[in-house]
């Protein structure tokens, strides 16, 4: 796996759930996530959205980058790596945290699970191994092992997700609290279940050994049918996470290591992630830069937009009195809200809810450029969460 790849030699691998997922795909619409191919859409947006928002959605999250961090200094290492407090995370609990470079710019967003006293699992959307290793230099007892390909991850989200798991006989999940995780036995198969909130829904991450992946998938689909469970692809996940105001790396911000232009990286404050920055906890990578807020004020902010019309305008230019003040980074028609919702990056003085703005968007229509203009206004995020 660690074989050096030339730019045109990419690794491609099927998700452990690929065979099962493929049998449900009516559209054959797939897309790439890391080294994996995952379903963009299985059936229709309406059906999948309805399943996730009112029943339960089954999502293949296997491409999540998974790293095991262990050793006596793992705790101190993570406390230095992450902006959020990691050193008092209890065993069998999880937290969310950005991690930054020296300049306090966000490299990526992570979910951290504490598995044992000296063992943690870190999930990120992208591979940040080089940074994790660099940060481990100088520690005597920190081991970093990537196990992305050794574990398949299923997301089970929506109102009925708990019922589905209970129907499978995993009744202990009833007592599992949010941000807690534990190992459960299901049909003599050991799976780790994390209860969490994502896309505005309560739900679970199920870690499954790849050799049991088909068994788990098929059982979930079979038993879940009674609860309206359906597999949900990336497209609908994206609509739901925009509704919930969740950022996606590469869409709503560029990771500090991907950015080539000096003004592209963002601090956690600029991304609205201040709640996950613990300046008081003591030193962490980027803390010196971030605690100098007066020298490095936030230049931009991420806001929610309510846009007129029906078309999603991702990439649209945001104008105020004719001046460019921002860009629409993620946009979708929201079935729940009945209008177009968007996440946008705007200059920091345009963050007040109620602020009226214009969106300008150009398309090529029958080989002629056509410029669209839509009215928009800033609204509070999240747009929608399912009663959470």
């Amino acid at each position, binding site marked *: 796996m660690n074989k050096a790849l030339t730019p045109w030699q990419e690794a491609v691998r099927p998700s452990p759930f690929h065979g099962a997922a493929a049998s449900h795909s009516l559209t054959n619409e797939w897309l790439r996530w890391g080294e994996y191919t995952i379903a963009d859409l299985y059936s229709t947006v309406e059906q999948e959205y309805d399943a996730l928002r009112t029943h339960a959605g089954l999502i293949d999250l296997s491409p999540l980058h998974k790293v095991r961090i262990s050793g006596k200094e793992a705790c101190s290492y993570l406390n*230095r790596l992450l902006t959020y407090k990691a050193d008092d995370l209890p065993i069998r609990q999880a937290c969310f945290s950005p991690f930054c470079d*020296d300049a306090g710019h966000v490299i990526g967003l992570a979910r951290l699970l504490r598995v044992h006293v000296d063992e943690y699992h870190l999930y990120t959307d992208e591979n940040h191994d080089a940074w994790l290793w*660099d940060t481990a230099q*100088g520690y005597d007892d920190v081991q970093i092992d990537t196990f992305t390909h050794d574990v398949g991850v299923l997301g089970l989200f929506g109102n009925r997700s708990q019922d589905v798991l209970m129907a499978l006989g995993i009744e202990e999940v009833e007592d599992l609290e949010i941000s807690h995780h534990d190992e459960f036995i299901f049909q003599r198969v050991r799976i780790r279940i994390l209860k969490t909130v994502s896309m505005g829904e309560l739900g679970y991450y199920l870690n499954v050994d790849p050799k049991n992946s088909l068994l788990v998938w098929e059982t979930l689909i079979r038993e879940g049918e009674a609860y309206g469970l359906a597999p949900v692809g990336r497209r609908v996940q994206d609509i739901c996470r925009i509704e919930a105001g969740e950022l996606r790396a590469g869409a709503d911000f560029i990771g500090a290591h991907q950015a080539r232009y000096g003004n592209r990286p963002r601090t956690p404050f600029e991304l609205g992630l201040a709640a996950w920055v613990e300046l008081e906890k003591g*030193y962490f990578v980027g803390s010196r*830069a971030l*605690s100098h807020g007066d020298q490095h004020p936030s230049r931009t902010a991420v806001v929610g937009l309510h846009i007129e019309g029906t078309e999603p305008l991702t990439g649209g230019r945001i104008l105020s009195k004719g001046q460019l003040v921002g860009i629409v980074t993620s946009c979708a028609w929201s079935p729940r809200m009945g209008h177009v919702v968007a996440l946008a990056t705007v200059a920091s003085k345009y963050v007040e809810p109620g602020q009226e703005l214009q969106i300008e968007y150009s398309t090529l229509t029958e080989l002629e450029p056509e410029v669209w203009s839509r009215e928009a206004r800033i609204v509070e995020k999240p747009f929608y969460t399912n009663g959470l």
Partner: protein
Amino acid sequence: MINLLSRKSKTPVSVTPQSNGVCDAVIVGGGHNGLVCAAMLAKAGLKVTVLEAQERLGGAAASDEIKQGVRVSTCAHLVYALDEKIVKGLRLHKHGLQFAKARLSTVAPDGEGAVAHLHADIWKTQAGLRVLSESDAAAFPKFREKMQTYALALKALLTNSPSVAQQSDLGALEQFLSKIQILNEDGRRELLRLLVSSSGDILDETFENELLKGALAFDSILGLNSGPRSMNSMAHYLYRLSGEASCDRDGMAIVTGGMSSLADALSDAARAHGVKMRTGAKVMRIIIQKGAACGVELEDGERVMAPLVISNADPKTTYLKLVGVEYLDTGFSAQLRALRCEGVTAKMNLILNGLPTFRGLTQEDLSSRIVICPSIDFAERAFNPVKYGSFSHDPVFEIIFPNLHDTSLTSGSEQILSANVQYVPYKVEGGWPARREELVEQLVMALGYFAPDIKDRIVSGHVLTPLEIEKEYGCTGGHWHHGDFALDQIGILRPAPGMGAYGAPVAGLHMCGAGASGGGITGRPGLLAAEHALADLRTSRKSGVRAI
């Protein structure tokens, strides 16, 4: 709550100081720069404590009796352009500092009878050069003057490192660019060209005589892990010249009584200003609380607390060992690990039963600094082996006979040959213990070409490889600059690019050693550190908060 677990000691660090002594500033390491910094701070009214791991103060400014009745400078042997602010400001002459010889001139024999003389006086030099080449003699004064102008313009950039300047590297660059406005447009263009040139190329285009070019090239490479054909050698030449150009009074000087006398004068001056000095006090850890340095912990667990910690240790030791990566940004610690600090200069002291005869040199010439570097190619060939883990068989030498100026050094008729030898690598294939004998033999043989009777005159000797310099003087890599003086590691990029972008990597921690702004026995890094620490204190007192 702050993180109370220290990685190194595995014992909880209490937030309330349990120090034995509280002072305003604690200096880690009593090298000559540490002493300069301590004395300057104490002079300004601060309570300062110096903690030195060794039993003596002075670091590389050290002398010892290597044979009964013979006292030699065991590491550095010349004071190079000691800053006037230090000499006068600390009244070092009153505290016993004497120069047995100042404004030392240079002679460079080629081993075949020709000699280049470089005097502190340009016109005297010019007159002497006529023997070698009329056109070179004509070109010399202009070259020298031009280089001094550039060296002065460059000084701001080379000595004002962010680690002491507490400002962003880009800010320092802007400041530098505004300072070089004193040069006209062509002058600025020329300076930028010189910075990225090799001294070999610049000397080749200016002079024709190989011996003269070799002698001048020597100063561009002494202490540098590069050859005269390497791209940054001209920048290093200008750096060395910047010291001399800005305080031309003493130039290169031999200290009466050996280099430890400088250490004695400095520690005397420091003591007179109330500095508390402790030897045999090895600092194991710099204590960090709430992201700021607030004291140090010694080997026996004793703590010395101070709001200002100033380290005379090299950057790698200071940050990676004493502070520890858990208080450092990932990018910064990666840059520090990448800092190249392997020295290539060995120190050799030979005790001779009489003065040797160097081909082409008169007895009088032996009281000058003797540079063995007959051509640029000679130096470049000497550099080649260290790239591949070996040492030069024909190295370049800087030799002085200190006892010719200071009779107190020997009791009998012995003569002391003190030499810096290049290129001797830090790591050698096969390891140093195994190849040390071979090195010593080779050095004596190489010297024998220029001074045929030297082998017969040797009574005893003392050689320090960079590895031994590291052990003896505690500088990582045994590099007397605490980090190679390459273009990517000088001035604002020293010791790491962007280091000063957010104030300092660790609040309350300053660096006063060669790793901050260049090596050599100049005292400048110590002086600069003291100035900046005081400025820092004034700012924080004014604003009521500590500058981080």
